[in-house]
């Protein structure tokens, strides 16, 4: 049964075709938080998303990029890589990757209200926002090597 499920999943996966792709590289500085939102917004806008879907994506991207700027590189700058893919089933995959310090305990970092900030100026809900505003969030991280956050958003059917 498990084998059948896995194969079915694979078939489902193969049914969708990649229709467009974008790769962007930029310095991981706070000025680029809005730049990152804007470029992803411009790419996704081609696929006729609703205003709400586009706003969800902007917010989730902003959280992931801010994590790179603040946590991965500790505000010292580095390189931020953004990859966006649009598929024929109207799903959009966004990868936000850095080569920063990585996350020791991803599960803990993703707990709502978890923050390493002591100033009271960070809310600790960055991952919770990504999860709330995306259909799927995956985080892969290797301490000392970097982190990749993959966001999937399924756009509603065009009517």
């Amino acid at each position, binding site marked *: 049964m498990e084998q059948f499920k896995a194969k079915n999943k694979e078939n489902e996966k193969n049914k969708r075709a990649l229709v467009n792709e974008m790769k962007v590289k930029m310095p991981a500085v706070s000025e680029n938080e*809005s730049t990152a939102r804007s470029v992803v917004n411009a790419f996704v806008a081609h696929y006729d998303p609703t205003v709400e879907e586009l706003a969800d994506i902007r917010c989730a991207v902003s959280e992931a990029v801010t994590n790179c700027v603040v946590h991965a590189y500790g505000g010292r700058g580095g390189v931020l890589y953004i990859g966006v893919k649009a598929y024929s089933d109207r799903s959009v995959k966004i990868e936000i990757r850095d080569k920063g310090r990585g996350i020791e305990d991803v599960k803990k970092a993703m707990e709502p209200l978890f923050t390493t*900030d002591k100033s009271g100026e960070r809310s600790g809900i960055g991952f*919770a926002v990504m999860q709330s505003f995306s259909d799927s969030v995956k985080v892969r991280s290797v301490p000392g090597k970097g982190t990749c956050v993959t966001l999937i958003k399924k756009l509603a059917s065009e009517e």
Partner: protein
Amino acid sequence: MANSRIVVTTDGARLTVAPRGEIDHHSARSLRERIDSALYSARPEVLVLDLSHIDFMDSSGLGLLLGRYQRASEIGCEVRLMGCSARTKRILELAGADKLFKIEERA
């Protein structure tokens, strides 16, 4: 948004601060300084953060609100939010912060 626009008005013991544009981690820095400066010079009884003119806010914006709540509480000032969009309310709810602030609707 290095030069975040912000409108500050005082009405008796009530200080209203209305930022414009986007609140993210980058813009939050200058907004924080300007709101705190207005707060500490006016020392009002009530600080109203009017979010009616905010086009975008993420969890850094929530951090800004929570930080102002903390600073204002330290000087005995109540913080109220005004003009919250549905999206802002959703972010507040994710952190349970909707119970912290009194939310006013715009007159």
